């Protein structure tokens, strides 16, 4: 395998057979309780009328966005985006506010609703298996996938690969690589034979959803300082005006 500059996944919905081995592999690799999971597999069921039947399955994963909204939203900076792709979460900083769950347009981070204050209730999400990818192995879900529906590699290479595959089978695929530009680009790329909306993927612009809120946040300090200055000015002005008025009244009384 060539050296990977930017870790990424490619998911091909046409290849997925809904076996859910990736879920199991992930839970085993990362020691996740069996009633929770970092990967969700959603079957669309069978659609269409005989003989044109179709089935779609979506393996839902953290998208490892290039401009992660969870990271933008987290008040205490519990999320980090690595230069080479993975978005990771640090439970030691988390205060459990669940703002990341609101911010993520894909609804990825999930929370320990069943844990009290002693166990501690944390967020959980895909970590991109750092213990594996930084040791030359594929992430657990990719390695276990029997049909190569999930692939792992360098982001640019995978994008090229996806486009090649779409171009080779124009009748089979929708002409789009989801995640190439969505939400400012993601490191989980999807190609599919059914519309992406049917797979439950939101229709997102090319700018990350945190764009407006980050712009507003950047104005906070300058706004606070100028607003404080304006208020101080008004207060001083009013004070001076009242003082002058009082003195004038006093003088008027004295001259009477």
């Amino acid at each position, binding site marked *: 395998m060539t050296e990977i500059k930017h870790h990424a996944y490619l998911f091909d919905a046409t290849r997925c057979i809904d076996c859910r081995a990736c879920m199991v592999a992930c839970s085993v690799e990362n020691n996740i309780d069996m*009633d929770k*999971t970092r990967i*969700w*597999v*959603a079957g669309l069921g069978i659609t269409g009328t005989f003989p044109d039947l179709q089935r779609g399955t*979506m393996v*839902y994963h953290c998208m490892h966005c290039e401009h992660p*909204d969870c*990271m*933008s*939203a*987290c*008040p*205490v*900076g519990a999320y980090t985006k690595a230069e080479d792709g993975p978005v990771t979460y640090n439970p030691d*900083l*988390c*205060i*459990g*506010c*669940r*703002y990341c*769950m*609101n*911010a993520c*347009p*894909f*609804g990825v981070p*999930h*929370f*320990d*609703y*069943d*844990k*009290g*204050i*002693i166990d*501690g*209730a*944390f967020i959980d999400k895909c970590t991109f298996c750092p213990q594996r990818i930084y040791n030359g192995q594929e992430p657990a879900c990719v390695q276990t996938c029997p049909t190569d529906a999930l692939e792992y590699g360098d982001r640019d290479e995978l994008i090229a690969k996806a486009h090649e595959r779409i171009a080779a089978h124009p009748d089979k695929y929708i002409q789009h690589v989801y995640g190439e530009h969505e939400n400012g680009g993601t490191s989980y790329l999807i190609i599919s034979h059914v519309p992406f909306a049917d797979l*439950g993927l*939101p*229709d997102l612009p090319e700018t990350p959803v*945190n764009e*407006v*809120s*980050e712009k*507003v*946040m950047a104005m*906070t300090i300058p*706004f*606070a300082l100028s*607003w*404080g200055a304006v*208020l101080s000015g*008004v*207060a001083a002005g*009013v*004070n001076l*005006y009242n003082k002058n008025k009082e003195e004038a009244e006093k003088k008027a009384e004295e001259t009477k």
Partner: protein
Amino acid sequence: MKLDITLPKFLRIGILPSVLIALMGIAFVTAMARYAFGIGAISDLSYSYPWGFWISFDLFTGVVISSGGFLMAGLVYILGIKEFQPLLRPSVLTAFLGYIMVAIALLVDLGQPLRIWYMMIHWNHTSVLLEIGICVMLYLTVLAIEFAPVVLESFPKLHNIAHLIHKFIMPFVILGVVLSTLHQSSLGSLLLIQPTKLHPLWWTPILPIMFFTSAISVGMAMIILESSLSSRYFQRGLETHLLEKIAKGLPIALGVYALLKFGELAVAGELDLLFTSGIMSVLFWAEILIGVVTPIVWFSIQKNRTSNNALLTGAIIVLVGMILNRFNVSWFAVKHPDPLFYMPTFMGNVDYFPTFPEVAVSIGIFAAGIMAFGLIAKYFPVFEDELPAAAHAGD
């Protein structure tokens, strides 16, 4: 001989305080269950709906109805309108208690309540929630300083400190107004990161400005409400002439807000959504008709501004409409990704509806706030026309 079955004086409490104490008790037990068994044990919150009634009611509503404090402090100290002085202390007290209630509610809602102070040392400067957290913490301190003289005055030995605070109050007032402006508007910014989840009737880049404008109207309504209610409960005179002036300002503040709301929709070319969004259109019109249109008409009538009952009614109408707005923005109009696609059915609920314990926690905290206001108003000179000695023990 008269049969004496009355309780000792210190055990005698009225009906209202007993009810409040009972509500607080229920909330306390519920909160303990939450700490023991997790948030999921008492609430309907899920992966799809991480924020629910607690955020809409305790955070969004709690903060906005506490806006009377900075409004009054600004009017009296910064604009130098000294005639509003009698309304200042109750407003500051309401705000102070309001923010304490917000903080307590967050301690129930947070997954790691013991780490709430992490916001003081771990800063992610792109997070709107961090700004709100820091502003609320600082503003609580400012409110404590603003209110401290009321308590200190009751102890002759501490008069010096009260005078000292009074002398240097201005910087704190200005800081308080700046902090309030920031976090009142930032509550709107909190939703900016959900352009794909919040309905376009509400999502706009100027959400922070809308939140601030509406907070001013709510602050005015709250001043009227708390003055009227406390004048009834404590059987004291009502500053009708002052409230009349506030009531005169309300249609102006609400008018500006309405202009912003409809102006923004017009600029964004989304006016058609007003009639084509089904239940969302209904919710939007409900908040506008109740919270904006009705009060503008109501307070434009001279007669309604001078009658105590009409003032109270008008204030309640404003509050109902504006609180509906906060619920819309933070809950009703927020559509999370369809969870059917995202998770196996065993993992989360598809819909969210608050459970009884969830609501009970909020109500209990609210009851504690009312109780605290009553006790403080009884034993300290919150209403400046009465002396602390005049407060009589026992109801």
